[in-house]
């Protein structure tokens, strides 16, 4: 991982924690932790991506009462799978990155829903098919803006 990607991902994680934990903005703020995980995973490899996802998931789950570990599992899997995409797709074009971020965020939400406690989760159709895609678009847009502002050029260089 080059310094640019490292700084971008670290900045996204710190911003995510500031927005969600320090300011408590919830869904008003985009999920920058997943964006950071997806960008970092393509530079780190499967194990690195899974480990990054594990750590970020633990931070997310620090306040979860009913489904502790759901984010740890989901982000570990997403980190590992995101790293595998570099063997299938090269390049960091904006369209590719947009689809990659949307699918990554949506996939993470689906995994969290699947392993969450059944008594505490909202209906599948409402969350996975309606709310989550919108949140994924929001996160992808924020990720693309951050990527264009702070890390122009190829990330895999």
């Amino acid at each position, binding site marked *: 991982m080059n310094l640019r990607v490292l700084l971008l991902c670290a900045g996204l994680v710190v911003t995510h924690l500031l927005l969600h934990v320090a300011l408590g903005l919830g869904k008003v703020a985009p999920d920058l932790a997943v964006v950071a995980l997806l960008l970092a995973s393509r530079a780190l490899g499967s194990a690195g991506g899974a480990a990054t996802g594990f750590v970020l998931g633990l931070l997310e789950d620090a306040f979860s009462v009913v489904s502790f570990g759901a984010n740890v599992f989901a982000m570990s899997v997403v980190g*590992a799978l995101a790293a595998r995409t570099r*063997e299938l*797709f090269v390049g960091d074009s904006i369209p590719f990155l947009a689809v990659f971020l949307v699918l990554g965020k949506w996939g993470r939400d689906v995994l969290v829903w699947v392993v969450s406690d059944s008594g505490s989760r909202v209906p599948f159709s409402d969350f996975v098919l309606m709310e989550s895609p919108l949140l994924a678009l929001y996160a992808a847009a924020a990720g693309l803006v951050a990527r264009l502002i702070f890390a122009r050029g190829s990330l895999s260089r």
Partner: protein
Amino acid sequence: MAGQPRESGEGRKRDFLLTAGIILGSLIVLNLPPGSQRSIQLFLRETVLSPLLEINGAIARMRERALDFNVLRAQMDSVTGLVAAGRTLAEENRQLREALGLSERERHQVRAATVIRTGTPGAESIFLLDAGSDDGVRPFNAVATEAGLLGQVQEVFSGRAVGFDWSHRDFRASAMTPDGRTYGLVEAVRGGFREQDRLILRGTAYLSDLSPGEELLTSGRGGTFPRGIRIGWVAEPAEASAGWSRSYYVDPAVYPGAATHALVYLDSVADTVAVEPDSAAGPGQADQR
């Protein structure tokens, strides 16, 4: 834009094993016993996330201080009026209790605390308080704001406590109308989205007929919530079990997301009607608290 494997066979194998190990580890974390999960959460909250929680608390306190002085003055005037009117009532109550041989009414100690809410997934119904075991806070203490009941303390640590608000699936409170005619159990019902969560009053008598706008208070039954804290107002009938009971949707008095300051009722109260075990008084003379 097909990619290519970047590692050798040995490297790929090692990477795969490491990845599998980490995912297995995440599954273990998911299935850890609740005690171990709480320990990990406490460690994270007290170390990495502690500065962020401090910032959250400081912002909540700043938001409180930014309240309009005129609003605060109006609230204080209302409270002053209520206290003045209550003095004579308290004296009348004391005299009546003395005449009936009832023990003195239980007083509740409260501790003011700042409500800290995080916006992380899975923490939607959870709040933190900047008061903990050092301040006398205990699990299951009631938490209320000036508007009404917010929730209940669940876990207590030194200097900090974690609670859930009324939107949590495990929240239950025994409720009554101010005149004490109708009793029931209030719990949260999940909306299509979390923002649509609301309360429902279940188990009221079938013949009870509550009209929209009627106030609901905690009844004190069960001993968890002190009697008389406002829960909300009846919104509309929800359902009826034929000839048996009725349910009503309730508009909550407190919207959890807006709460920045709360009072913790320190002592868990006993049931509101208790009989002294070795009462020397004759039968039927209960100790009404």
